[in-house]
């Protein structure tokens, strides 16, 4: 019998009141691609941090190649041969790829040798990477390659990847899988953290499922179905969304040939972006983030009022140069992807956050009617089942999912005529995500026009009536969601869509009349 590369026994970790890991056991064999599956908050990242030495377990044993070990720091983990690719990259933007890799090395290797090392590793695994480019000029996918090559240069025996595909196009995911399979074939074990069932079934040999800090099952994912895996993961099958046929009304929001230069170097120029959004429909914008979505959203929300007057129209009225407040007054509301900081002021209470967007509870001379405000806030908390300490709770104290429910609820309660949402369920657990999507669809059925920008294809396929794809600052024509496939959208994400006539939003494929 082969000795497991890594074995965890009875690993337990408590934080203040929560047990993040409760007697977790895990066995990873050499050359095995092992997935840890679980929802947000299931204890995946805590477990990984323990393996990588960033956290110490309260109880339990770690065996490395059969020997009990104490991993006190990431350095010790690396010395054992454990490498990690983080979900949020820890790269230095103003330095070059090679300098970034160099900083992560301990020895006294000259920079030139590092450059050569990167070139040969990248070639070996078919990863395109230019060692002398500065990191801020790289796309998210390229940055991930930097992290992977950096990890590979250490010749790891165990590579940990935390949600590696959240930033990749479907095609890039395929390429990543090829690399990972090649790596596993050399005997390196891989721990693959994800909540995407399809990927795990396509890639992994073994799967350990966590729920609420406990292991709820270990299985061979290739033999399981999505439904059986999600039963292990959330204890039930995910609630299904009832999506009725849309009945689009008049045009609510029209973006016409919007061309904008980026505001800062790290942004993307917009080139001739056109789209039409009708009352009572949900239009999605797919694409890997960083392709101009931020700039488009800013031009629509009014955060960036530099567009031509007529490039953005709301119910026929040109609003391209209006500010955010003026657009909100006209019924155009925006939910940004950053919940803390843009969607809500982290240190203010939920009630005060409400007050910043609404003025029903204001009396003459700007006095705040605190009872009315509290009542109004409490109503939303109740209607959208927000778990919180009440209207006085500080925004920062809520979990991501609950704060998102509150913010979405706040905007829905204001009955907008057009609602623009960025990443509506980013980092939100399956239950809350389903609730948010259902609420947004209900808003659509009530006649609001919705524009949803998201990186999660599944989500877009589930909620939207029509889809656009954004790539390198350009927007594809729209396609009816029922006619779209993952492969097609993936192709469009690389900018390869059929180009239509020059003049505007006339081209549509499979769009309803």
């Amino acid at each position, binding site marked *: 019998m082969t000795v497991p590369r890594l074995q965890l026994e009875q690993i337990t970790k408590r934080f203040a009141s929560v047990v993040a890991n409760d007697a977790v056991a895990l066995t990873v064999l050499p050359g095995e691609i092992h997935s840890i599956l679980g929802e947000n908050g299931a204890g995946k990242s805590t477990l990984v941090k323990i393996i990588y030495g960033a956290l110490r377990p309260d109880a339990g044993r770690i065996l490395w190649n059969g020997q009990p070990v104490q991993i006190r720091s990431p350095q010790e983990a690396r010395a054992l041969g454990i490498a990690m690719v983080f979900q949020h990259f*820890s790269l*230095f933007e*103003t330095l070059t790829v090679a300098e970034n890799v160099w900083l*992560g090395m301990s020895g006294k290797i000259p920079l030139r040798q590092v450059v050569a090392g990167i070139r040969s590793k990248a070639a070996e695994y078919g990863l395109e990477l230019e060692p002398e480019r500065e990191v*801020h000029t790289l796309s998210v996918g390229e940055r991930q390659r930097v992290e992977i090559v950096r990890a590979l240069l250490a010749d790891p025996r165990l590579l940990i990847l935390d949600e590696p595909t959240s930033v990749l196009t479907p095609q890039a995911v395929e390429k990543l899988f090829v690399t990972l399979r090649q790596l596993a074939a050399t005997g390196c074990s891989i721990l693959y953290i994800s909540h995407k069932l399809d990927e795990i079934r396509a890639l992994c040999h073994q799967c350990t499922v966590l729920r609420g800090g406990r292991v709820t099952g270990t299985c061979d994912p290739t033999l399981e179905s999505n439904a059986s895996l999600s039963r292990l993961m959330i204890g039930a099958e995910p609630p299904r969304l009832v999506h009725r046929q849309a009945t689009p009304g008049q045009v609510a929001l029209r973006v016409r040939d919007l061309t904008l230069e980026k505001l800062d*170097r790290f942004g993307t120029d917009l080139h001739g972006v056109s789209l039409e959004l009708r009352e009572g429909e949900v239009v999605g914008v797919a694409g890997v983030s960083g392709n101009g979505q931020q700039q488009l959203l800013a031009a629509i929300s009014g955060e960036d009022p530099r567009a031509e007057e007529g490039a953005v129209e709301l119910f026929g009225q040109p609003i391209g140069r209006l500010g955010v407040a003026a657009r909100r007054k006209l019924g155009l509301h925006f939910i940004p992807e950053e919940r803390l900081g843009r969607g809500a002021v982290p240190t203010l209470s939920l009630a005060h956050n409400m007050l910043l967007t609404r003025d029903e509870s204001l009396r003459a001379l700007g006095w705040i009617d605190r009872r009315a405000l509290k009542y109004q806030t409490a109503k939303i908390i109740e209607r959208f089942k927000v778990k919180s300490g009440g209207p006085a709770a500080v925004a920062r104290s809520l979990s991501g999912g609950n704060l998102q429910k509150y913010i979405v609820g706040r905007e829905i309660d204001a009955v907008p005529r057009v609602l623009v949402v960025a990443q509506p369920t980013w980092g939100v657990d399956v239950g809350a995500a389903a609730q948010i999507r259902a609420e947004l669809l209900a808003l659509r059925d009530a006649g609001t026009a919705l524009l949803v920008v998201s990186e999660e294809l599944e989500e877009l396929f589930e909620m939207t009536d029509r889809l656009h794809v954004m790539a390198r600052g350009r927007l594809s024509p729209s396609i009816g969601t029922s006619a779209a496939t993952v492969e097609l959208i993936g192709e469009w994400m690389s900018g390869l869509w059929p180009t239509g006539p020059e003049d505007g939003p006339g081209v549509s494929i499979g769009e309803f009349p």
Partner: protein
Amino acid sequence: MNEFALLVAATLAAGTPLAIAGIGLLVNERAGVLNLGAEGMMLVAAVAGFATGYATGSEVAALAAGALAGAVIAAIYGWLVIWLNTNQYATGLAVSLFGSGFSAFVGLGLVGKKLEETEVAGVPLLRDLPVLGVALFRQHPVVYLAMALTGGVAFFLHRTRSGLVLRAIGESPVSAHALGYPVRRIRLAAVVVGGTLCGVAGAYLSVVYTPLWVEGMVAGRGWIALALTTFATWRPTRLLLGAYLFGGVTMLQLDLQASGVQVAPQFMSMLPYLATVVVLVLISRNPLWIRLNMPASLGKTFFPGS
């Protein structure tokens, strides 16, 4: 022609304390720590240097005493903001206010005293060149030190691994910590280097430039040096040029006043500061440039393990 050469010579001498302090602050800011205490550190170093020079008669000892005084205050400042996590802006301002009071108090007995002026040797042979000799080669060694320092720091920051680590810490202390670099200790070292150089600059003022002690004699040069780091977008060579520009405008307005131009002298003494503000505004027009060069963590407290 000779007049022009003298103006160049005076410009170099006037720009030197700004350049030395500025280079020190640049190193310190590249690591992500802002030290608004520059003015105070320079004042304390000036009085320490002057007192030492007065007691020993040695210029080298006087400059060393200034450097030491700067280093000690910077070390205390560093301990406060890096380990005790006090606010960098407030603590820096406190150091400046403390420095001006403390130096005035300690220097009470030194007011009106004078150091012996020493003959400046300059660079042998080159000093006798026509025009150029007067303009460039009859300066105090500290003037050349400032130039050498600029080149040295530029090389250190962009060509050595330690410089790379320093810049990395200034950009993202969290990432650097995750890679296993001792962020706090490196930051303290950078702050002490900054303080030492501010100290040399302060002592240069009271020992070499105007060899006497007057209360508040640093006269805002600490603040100008701080502004210069931004002005130069944290690039050593640009900082040196900025320092000379400021020194040049200072000298030019003195010249104009002396030649009897009919402008209020108060207005003329405003000019160098005005010029600094104008250049700062021009530079800030390019946010891209600043964002690429500015240490992203500047002024922010770093908590390891959070």
